[in-house]
Structures are given as structure tokens and as C-alpha cells.
């Protein structure tokens, strides 16, 4: 069922084919994703790209994890400090 794995703070997260980064993160660690750039708890919230609560950094870009398909070997990081 796993289409690949990406890395979240050193942790390897499995995902299904076509699955978003947020969805895979929610299955693995639903309530402990650390802090976002403003110090609020990073979280999956609206699921439709509106709330910006699930922003992460992928390939140097701050992006909504709920809109972004996971890719094998991808490094995903919390946005703290990355967009200052």
C-alpha cells in the first residue's frame, strides 16, 4: 500500500500513491508536528488549502502540505524561521 516514504525531522513517513503530505503526516503523527513560523502549533486544519495552518517547507519552498502530493525521498520540514 505504501508508495514511498518522505522524511519529517529525521522520521521516515510512509505515504500512499497520490496522497498529500498532510494526509500522510496526520496518519503518522496527528497532533505533534511542532511549531509553525509564528510559534503556533503546526497542524492540519481545513484540508482545502485555505487556513495556512499546515504550511511546511519542501525543497526550500513554503507550501500547504494539504495541497502537495508526497514524493519518495522528499525532505519535509516545519516552516519555523524558513520564511523570515
Amino acid at each position: 500500500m505504501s508508495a514511498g516514504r518522505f522524511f519529517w525531522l529525521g522520521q521516515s513517513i510512509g505515504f500512499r500513491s497520490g496522497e498529500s503530505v498532510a494526509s500522510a503526516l496526520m496518519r503518522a503523527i496527528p497532533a505533534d508536528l511542532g511549531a509553525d513560523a509564528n510559534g503556533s502549533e503546526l497542524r492540519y486544519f481545513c484540508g482545502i488549502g485555505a487556513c495556512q495552518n499546515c504550511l511546511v517547507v519542501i525543497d526550500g519552498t513554503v507550501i500547504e502540505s494539504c495541497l502537495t502530493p508526497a514524493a519518495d525521498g522528499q525532505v519535509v520540514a516545519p516552516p519555523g524561521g524558513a520564511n523570515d
Partner: protein
Amino acid sequence: MTDAGLECDALVVGGGAAGVSAAAALASAGYRVELAEQRAALGGAYHRQPLDAADLRYRPRGVRAWSALMRDLTAAGVTPLCRHVFLGLDQDGLAMLDDRAGRRVVAVRARAIVLAVGAIEKVLPRPGWQMAGVTTAGGLQMLLKETGEVPPGDILIAGSGPLTLALAADLVRVGRPPLVVVEAGDPVARAASALGLAAFPGLLGEAAAHLARLLTSQTRWLRGATVTRIERADGRLVATVTGRRGAVSTLAADLIALHDGIRPNDFGLPAQPGGEPLVVRAGDCREALGIAAASADGRAAAEAVIAALSGAPPSVAPKAIERQRRAQGILKRLFAPVAGREVMAGLPDETIICRCEGRTAGDLRGLLAGADQPGLREIKLNGRFGMGLCQGRFCADNVRAFVAAQRPSNDISTTALSRDRWPLKPVSIASLIADHTPEGQ
């Protein structure tokens, strides 16, 4: 500025029912259409497509309607631009799309733009609502629709409106009934409003099916109650539930899904009535009438565009829209919260109102107590409410309600907190620099 951007007659933004219906109607009328969708697949919120249909342990709603829409779209020859996020219109009237896969911004010159970016959920503030593990009810439903499952742990649903019941029923169907559904209204006691639903057998049937699922799974539906506080203890979320006459209890869960209705996702959208390009809104972002009106509204938007581009007389609004307006009115009365304005006025000072900027009810009280009687514009610029990354999508309504509760005579609009501005979403400088503008610009 290397090669050409895109040129078309109509750019449709949003690949849900309204957008797909508008794009299909425009293309089949002979217009050159581009359809931009922010996700990797069409569907919008209601028709969110499963990763693998074979994994679903239940049949999703609306499968036939969506297949028909997709058939129309394909027959009309429209190939959607997926993972293209609409950023807004630049000063020359070019629509800017962030091509997330190509990592560049694409400029689209269109004679008309149909915005069909759907609805967002309203979520009322309460201490702790900003924590991880708290989602919107729709957000949890998106995970369920896409993967056929929800994250592990006990789920509590709280807020108001039919979507809380739909989510609860879906959770029952996958063997994960919620601990409880906490409903601020009391639809059962509002029999007069409920009678009005008799004119809408589809809605009534859906509601009955949801309630039947709750009953058979013995899921509690606690009406006239609200979750007034969420705290974290021992790695779980603990909800304080305040019921009628102030009865208070606590309940521990792993996930809390909040939902207090829906509203148009119209924050920061360009409005150019009569301007160039013509901008028309369709579906829930025009008026939150739900899936039953979305396709008809998309077609109506397409007809308005065709009328403007061809000089033909505009057609009248379809009956389906007026009908759904009545249905939504009934639902709103049916689910009207038992407790009124005092809820907002009584929020503890530490309650986060604007999560993006970490601004609290106490901060807002302090601002409002100032001698200069700040308007919404000052509340935004000085108080930083609605200034954050979500552009006020999740706090502007609440700030407005909070201010209105303190100054009942002085009604103000939510849009003062979220004016027309772009980019609508964060975009990388690298993508902006790599933009593609139509030739001849």
C-alpha cells in the same frame, strides 16, 4: 518572461462542481477555456476523489453526478491545469497562476474569469481551538474521502450545522463513530423550521439517513451545548462541554473536529464588475448554497460570461438556486445556536481569535477599549487581526462578530478586514521571477 503564458476566452478557477460545470458549458459553446485547480485532481470539497476507490468501505455521495460532470468536461475538450493555484489579477488584468509542479508563475490573459473557489468553514473561537489535533469537520471529512480512513484515536465533533452530522455518519460507516456530536443549536426543538424541510425531500432523506446511523451506533447527539474550552492533558485533548443552564462536563479525545457553518471563500478575490477582464463568481464562493446548487450556478456563470462576450441578453437565475437559498435558510433557522451573542462577548481573554498572528480576545478588548474607537481597518493594521497568512479567512467573521457584540449599533462588514489583494496564497520569489507572461506584453 521567456516563452508565452496562456491566452483564452475564459479562465475558470476551481475544479469542484461549479467550476467544472462552468468550464464544460463554456467550452461546449465554442469558447477557449482553461480550468485551473489547486490540487492534483479535480473534485473540490464535496467530490473529493479517493486515492483508491477500492479502499473505500462505503459508497461516496454524488458519484453519479460527478461522473456526469466529468463526462461533459471531457466531451467539451477541456484539459484541466492541476496544481495551479490562483494568486489574483495583476495590475494589467492578467490572472496569475502558481504552477506548483513547474515551480513558476503562469500569467493568463483571459477575456473572462469565472471564480469557483468554493466555501470555507466557519469556526468559532474558544480557548484551545488553535491546537494541533483540532481540525475543521470538513478537514477531517477530506481525509476520510481521500484515504477512506481517519487518523487514530477518539474523535469529538462540535459546533453547529448539518455537516457535523454528515461527518459523524461517515465515521460510523467506517467503524469509527465519534464519542459525541456537540450541537450548539437544537434542531429537534425547532419543529416549525423542520416542517419547512418537507419541501426538500432530498435534504430530509439525507438528514434521516445520517440520524439513523447515529442512532444505530448509539452515538450521542448533544444539542444546545458547546465546547467552551480545549486543553491538552496526557497527550490528549480535553474538551469542556457547556450544556443548557450552564451544566459543565469534560471529555477527553484525540481529535476534535469543529464546524460552525460555511461561508463563501471570497477573501481577497478580485471584483471587477463591468471591468476587463470580466470577473464572475460561481458556486459557494458566490453564495454558500452547497452542492445542490453548485452545478446550476456554474452553468449560470457560464451563461453570464457567454452573454457578456457575445452581446446576447443575460439569462435569468435558474430556479435551482432560489430553491437552495430557501433550503439553506431553513437549515440556518433549524440549527440556530441556542446561546446567542453573549458567547462571543464572554470569551476569556486568553482565547486566540487570529491564530496566524496569535492575537487574543484580550488584545481585541484592549483595542476596542481605546479612546479612538478603532474601525476594522485599524483593528487589522494596528491590532494585526486578519493580517496573517490566511488573510482573515478564519478570523475576520469572528472579529466582526466580537466587535458587533460590543458595539451593536455599529454594524461592520467582514470584507473591511480582507480587501482585494494578491497574492491570495504564499508564493515563492523564485516562482514569481520565473513567471511566464503572454507574448507581446
